């Protein structure tokens, strides 16, 4: 199963030229700066705007080709807009029922009760939208889109209208969609932070052109794109909770790279988590260090080196199938004689755990 979308859209001087093939599962993030055409593409996928010569297919269902244009109200999509857009004349529960009543989809069926629990909005059901906080409104909007039982959930920067605190309040709910939902999600965002937390697949859009499309862990560390050569470049490593060390309050995790040690997290053993490692927090040594306070040290092989500005380089390190970026000075790279295929040790100073 896959989703295939092909659009060529001209808007004044701007042209969007996208030909996407993305998996019909998990979360795909369309990532790019504002003005890169993300929302235009998402609206075209939803059928909210009609563009000639477009093509969109999800699984076996064609929504648009030369002779077909299925209007948005006949597509099994859920759409979460930047602004929550709750119906002002309806209570929260009536908002949720609006789509549920009109759903003709028997697949992926999730009960409204389950959705309401998932987004934790039970206490809001009888309220009118204007008395809800921005974060609550957006949670209701997500619930409303899910209650329609879509085959595909489209989210257009659902957090961008919220302040930082509210973003942190909602992100866990979106992360939970990831594990709880069986349907694919296309999530438009310009925030690396959001993408790192929730995306499995990433499509990088720059000025209307698809620069990259692939698994997030691979794209972030590929060194072929700006995102992996940025000041804030980072790597993602999938890991599993192995053990807890109550004496030192630590949690041990297993990954392709090896055994990570992080501050104790209240997660059951076996939980899948995502580790996020900033390139600036990774250093390289030629031999395994012993007299060091750093616990996360792994053998790895250099696969690629790319310059970052004038004084620094980004080094891509591989172990098994996982990769980590390290940002070091050009001088250090020179002294250590770093080069592709060289075997080294990486020291990871700090790891953020995204659960």
């Amino acid at each position: 199963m896959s989703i295939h979308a092909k659009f060529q859209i001209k808007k004044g001087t701007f042209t969007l030229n996208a030909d996407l093939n993305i998996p019909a599962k998990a979360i795909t993030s369309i990532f790019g700066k504002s003005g890169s055409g993300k929302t235009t593409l998402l609206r075209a996928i939803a059928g909210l705007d009609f563009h000639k010569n477009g093509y969109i297919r999800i699984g076996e269902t064609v929504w648009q080709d030369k002779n077909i244009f299925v209007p948005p109200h006949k597509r099994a999509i859920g759409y979460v807009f930047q602004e929550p857009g709750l119906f002002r004349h309806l209570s929260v529960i009536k908002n949720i029922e609006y789509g549920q009543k009109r759903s003709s989809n028997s697949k992926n069926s999730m009960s409204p009760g389950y959705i309401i629990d998932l987004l934790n909005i039970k206490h809001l059901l009888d309220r009118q939208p204007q008395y809800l906080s921005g974060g609550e409104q957006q949670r209701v909007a997500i619930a409303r889109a899910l209650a329609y039982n879509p085959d595909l959930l489209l989210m257009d920067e659902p957090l961008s209208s919220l302040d930082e605190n509210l973003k942190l309040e909602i992100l866990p709910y979106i992360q939970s969609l990831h594990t709880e939902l069986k349907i694919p999600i296309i999530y438009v965002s310009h925030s690396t932070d959001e993408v790192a937390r929730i995306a499995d697949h990433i499509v990088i859009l720059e000025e209307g052109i698809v620069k990259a499309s692939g698994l997030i862990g691979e794209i972030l560390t590929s060194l072929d794109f700006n995102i992996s050569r940025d000041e804030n470049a980072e790597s993602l490593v999938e890991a599993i909770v192995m053990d807890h060390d109550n004496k030192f309050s630590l949690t041990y995790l297993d990954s392709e790279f090896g055994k990570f040690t992080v501050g104790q997290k209240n997660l059951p053993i076996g939980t899948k988590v995502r580790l996020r490692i900033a390139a600036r927090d990774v250093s390289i040594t030629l031999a395994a260090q012993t007299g060091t306070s750093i616990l996360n040290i792994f053998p790895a092989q250099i696969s690629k080196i790319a310059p970052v500005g004038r004084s620094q380089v980004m080094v891509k390190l591989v172990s098994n199938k996982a990769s980590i970026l390290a940002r070091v000075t050009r001088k250090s790279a020179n002294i250590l004689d770093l080069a592709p295929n060289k075997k080294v040790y990486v020291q990871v100073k700090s790891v953020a755990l995204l659960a």
Partner: protein
Amino acid sequence: MILNEYDISALIITLKLALSTTFILLVLGTPLSWWLSKTKFRLKFLIDAVIALPLVLPPTVLGFYLLIAFGPDGFIGILLDTLGIKPIAFTFTGLIAGSVIYSLPFVVQPLQDAFKSVGKQQIEVAATLGASPIDRFFTVIIPLARHGFFTAAVLGFAHTIGEFGVVLMIGGNIPGETQVLSIAIYDHVESLEYINAHWLSGILLCISFIMLISIYAVNRKFRIVQS
């Protein structure tokens, strides 16, 4: 009660006229206002100007042209004649036709503003939740524009009750048939029957005031003249 038989019939004719006119205006005005609120038609300004004409034109001028058009030699008169319909000048039907044109801007403007205020997003949200265009109109647009409908109905009604020049020209002031309250008041004053004039004026004043109170109570930001 001081009111005579003709005063009573003038009151009934006025209310009948205002109710029919309001009903027709809402039926015609809804699609027209919806189209005007969405269209990117280049000559929309011309249509706006035509609809707004009754706001600035002396009612007698409008009534005069309508009388000519509705008469047996007028283009509407000839058109109706070929359809086998009698000329409508000096009839109640003629009054309704004139009132609909005269009060059109009072219905179209509030409806247009209300439709604009619904916003594109609410409609798109409904579309993504499986609502067809007609479904969206009845379940999202009309409920969200309800204040506009209320204002339009009340203004259309009140403005029709208050008209004078147009109905005098087209209706011809036939007691019991086309004589409305405002003209009956004028006749009473001409004949120095101030007590009757007081009663009828008082009734009109009360109706109008109650209607405006209800508009402002429902829609606190309401302005008769839109900026």
